[in-house]
């Protein structure tokens, strides 16, 4: 492979002709400086100096590699849309492939935090615009006309005389041209793809049952394994009797490692059966906790614990001492499981000459690093192929199940796919932490919010507050603090970490404060925001005007206060850089509140794919409603009490309300949508239920609340 040098400071672009003809641009979507130019003879295998590429073959097929793991956020469609927009490509000729892990060229090949689109927006546009520029230059050169007389659209360059050449015909010539240092982006008003509804590029494969997922990875000769992990957190293996299991048909071995017993065999069912024949005795290893212990602990920590201050403005003690009215309320949420439809699984083959890892992960680079550390080998000896993920919701940001597969493969010296049963998935940890909040508000005689306190206590929740979120900045005297309890029960990020519950607690509390202040909930929030605008208290990390706009638009679209006989609840939340306001309509049926409709107004800046954006908002609302209403994971003596969908309740089709989605069109650079629509839902629903029944909800899941007991 030959090497050229360029003086470009940009993080982008090498080119060559494709093997078999065409244009191949390799570029880095992520690193700020990955500029060792390399002549690409073939699509990068994942270890080049850049992590992605765009190629145009002589038959006009445009291939774009998508680096981020796809778990349903639709990144494999929205990323290429951005490239294709600036490229003026014919979308029907665009092919998208999943890039493998490449730790050399990128800094964010992961899925989480709704961060991929804002991170890559300009880089994707640059890639498309650069290729377009070069194709136009190539056409101009061929026709011997000024490039300014040429335009591009739908994969065709057209000269003012009417002459036309397709991108495929121009690809070779374009590949011989220098890469421009500067390119111009399109005006948003000229967008043809961005902002429109484009179908998921994987639809055809999904609806015909193609093997896309980690679970679908099979290789001749590979072994199957299931692992019995301790059922109770805070326990360890005392003894294992695997003789009976080892003698069962299809079983190759039973291996004990770490705190695990792996049953290895020739098929999933044989392994699952043999697993039941393994006798394991466990003994305590630290504190073995139950949900009842946590309830008592939360109360004592809130009352007497020593808290870490996260934000402090003004003098809260004085504000509360001088208040005309104070309100104090506690809100609690249980642990919940991520429960992606595809349970955890990973294929690993540890050989002398290297390690092969294949499966679904949100965080391939971390999985590779951890595996390298465990096996004590250099990272570059490990390849990691990212399959499609059957959901993630944060669970696959942890790589325990990857490292475990690698360790087992090494121990048995064979290629193996480790499969988690649903029960393993639900009892094996990394949950949304259980948290309890205490909110306090002080109102003056005129109903102004003059003091605000929020203390969060959580089980392995880290900081369960988001101290700079609204209403911080709008209240003169404010104290946000937290206390963490360390437990053997493992926790991790769960779609919209912390805010998935904090959003409900905060927005439900503000509703109650508005009621105490005798103000309309929408008006109350708007007044607070106007105050923050006029006299900001401390640093404000949200855009006040954007929040006001989604509030006003949601109230208008939902007919706030204008629907006789309908009980409405309001909520607004800023998280993961996007703003979402929601209005929930509740009707009483047979003496119980029924969620009839949720209207959502989202400001994520420029919408990339309208179809995907609606999916994320609708799905986020269904997810937020479902978990607020129904889901709970409780513990007894360290073990999860719900182990499968017969006892752990997820929302189903009969329980969904109508959902209406709107987006603010403001031309601001795009932000993510995988998470932001979820946090406001619980609050809007709880506030609407209060309107309907007169009873506030303080605990999730709502279904256990008195509001849902037969009256």
């Amino acid at each position, binding site marked *: 492979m030959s090497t050229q040098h360029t003086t470009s400071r940009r993080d982008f672009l090498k080119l060559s002709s494709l093997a078999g003809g065409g244009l191949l641009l390799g570029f880095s979507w992520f690193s700020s400086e990955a500029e060792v130019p390399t002549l690409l003879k073939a699509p990068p295998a994942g270890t080049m100096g850049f992590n992605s590429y765009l190629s145009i073959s002589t038959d006009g097929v445009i291939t774009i590699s998508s680096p981020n793991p796809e778990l*349903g956020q639709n990144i494999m469609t929205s990323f290429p849309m951005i490239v294709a927009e600036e490229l003026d490509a014919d979308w029907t000729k665009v092919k998208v492939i999943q890039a493998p892990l490449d730790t050399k060229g990128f800094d964010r090949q992961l899925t989480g935090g709704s961060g991929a689109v804002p991170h890559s927006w300009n880089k994707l546009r640059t890639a498309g615009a650069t290729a377009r520029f070069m194709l136009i230059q190539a056409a101009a050169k061929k026709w011997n006309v000024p490039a300014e007389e040429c335009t591009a659209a739908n994969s065709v360059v057209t000269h003012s005389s009417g002459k036309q050449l397709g991108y495929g015909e121009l690809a070779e010539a374009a590949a011989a041209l220098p890469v421009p240092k500067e390119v111009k982006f399109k005006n948003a008003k000229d967008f043809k793809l961005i902002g429109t509804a484009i179908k998921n590029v994987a639809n055809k494969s999904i*609806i*015909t049952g193609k093997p896309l997922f980690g679970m679908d990875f099979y290789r001749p000769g590979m072994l199957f394994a299931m692992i019995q992990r301790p059922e109770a957190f805070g326990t360890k293996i005392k003894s294992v009797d695997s003789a009976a299991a080892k003698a069962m048909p299809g079983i190759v071995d039973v291996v004990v490692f770490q705190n695990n017993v792996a049953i290895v065999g020739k098929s999933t*069912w044989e392994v699952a059966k043999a697993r039941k024949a393994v006798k394991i005795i466990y003994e305590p290893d630290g504190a073995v906790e139950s949900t009842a212990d946590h309830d008592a602990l939360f109360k004592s920590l809130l009352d007497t614990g020593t808290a870490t201050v996260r934000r402090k403005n003004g003098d809260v003690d004085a504000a509360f001492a001088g208040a005309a009215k104070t309100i104090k309320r506690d809100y609690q949420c249980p642990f919940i499981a991520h429960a992606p439809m*595809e*349970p955890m699984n990973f294929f690993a083959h540890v050989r002398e000459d290297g390690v092969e890892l294949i499966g679904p992960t949100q965080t391939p680079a971390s999985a590779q690093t951890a595996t390298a550390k465990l096996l004590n080998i250099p990272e570059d000896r490990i390849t990691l192929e990212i399959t499609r993920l*059957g959901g993630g919701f944060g669970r696959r940001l942890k790589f325990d199940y990857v490292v475990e597969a690698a360790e087992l493969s090494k121990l048995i010296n064979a290629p193996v796919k480790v499969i988690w049963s649903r029960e393993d998935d639900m009892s094996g940890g990394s949950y949304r932490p259980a948290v309890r909040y205490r909110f306090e508000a002080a109102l003056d005689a005129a109903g102004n919010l003059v003091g605000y306190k929020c203390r969060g206590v959580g089980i392995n929740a880290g900081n369960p507050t988001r101290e700079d979120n609204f209403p911080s900045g709008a209240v003169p005297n404010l104290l946000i603090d937290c206390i963490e309890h360390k437990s053997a029960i493992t926790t991790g990020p769960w779609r919209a970490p912390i805010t998935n519950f904090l959003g409900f607690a905060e927005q439900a509390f503000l509703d109650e404060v508005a009621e105490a202040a005798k103000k309309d909930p929408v008006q109350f929030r708007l007044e607070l925001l106007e105050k923050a605008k006029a006299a900001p208290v401390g640093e404000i990390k949200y855009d006040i005007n954007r929040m006001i706009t989604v509030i006003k638009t949601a109230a208008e679209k939902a007919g706030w206060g204008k629907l006789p006989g309908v009980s409405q609840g309001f909520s607004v939340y800023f998280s993961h850089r996007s703003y979402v306001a929601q209005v929930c309509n509740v009707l009483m049926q047979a003496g119980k509140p029924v969620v009839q409709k949720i209207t959502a107004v989202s400001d994520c800046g420029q919408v990339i794919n309208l179809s995907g954006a609606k999916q994320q908002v609708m799905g986020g609302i269904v997810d937020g409603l479902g978990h607020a209403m129904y889901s709970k994971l409780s513990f007894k003596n360290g073990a999860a009490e719900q182990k499968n969908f017969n006892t752990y309740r997820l929302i189903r089709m009969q329980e969904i309300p109508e959902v209406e989605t709107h987006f603010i069109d403001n031309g601001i650079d795009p932000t993510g949508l995988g998470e932001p629509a979820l946090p406001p839902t619980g609050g809007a629903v709880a506030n609407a239920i209060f309107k309907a029944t007169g009873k506030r909800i303080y605990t999730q899941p709502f279904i256990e609340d008195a509001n849902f007991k037969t009256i």
Partner: protein
Amino acid sequence: MPAYNLLINGKQHTADVAADTPLLWVLRDHLGLLGTKYGCGVAQCGACTVHLNGAAVKSCVLPVSAIKTSAVTTIEGLSELGDHPVQAAWDEVDVPQCGYCQAGQIMTAAALLKKNAHPADKEIAAAMNGNICRCGAYHRIHEAIKLAGTKI
């Protein structure tokens, strides 16, 4: 182990497996038909739904020995070109998010529409209630079934 002769997607297959092996794992581990998914193993999520003589069943709890001469249809055999009206509607409405549950959703929907081409909203929700979509794509699933009903 006994050898079972199975009629799947119109073709005869043979599987040497234990009598209690669920059809799901015969399809996946032994016959390489990977469209049918494992989600819960206890007939609660519907990801494993296939047709047995045209009716939707949960293959994760159906022992291979119980199938005998019944005709099995999996997502791979629902249509030759992937253009069954339900599949076409799924694409048209742009249903899939992660996509893992969708084969099961499609098989349940296809069985429903075979019995009742124009189900009422409540009938759709009742028929689909055994299929979980963790991404929450229920609105579009519902819409796609309505659309498919107009084309059957």
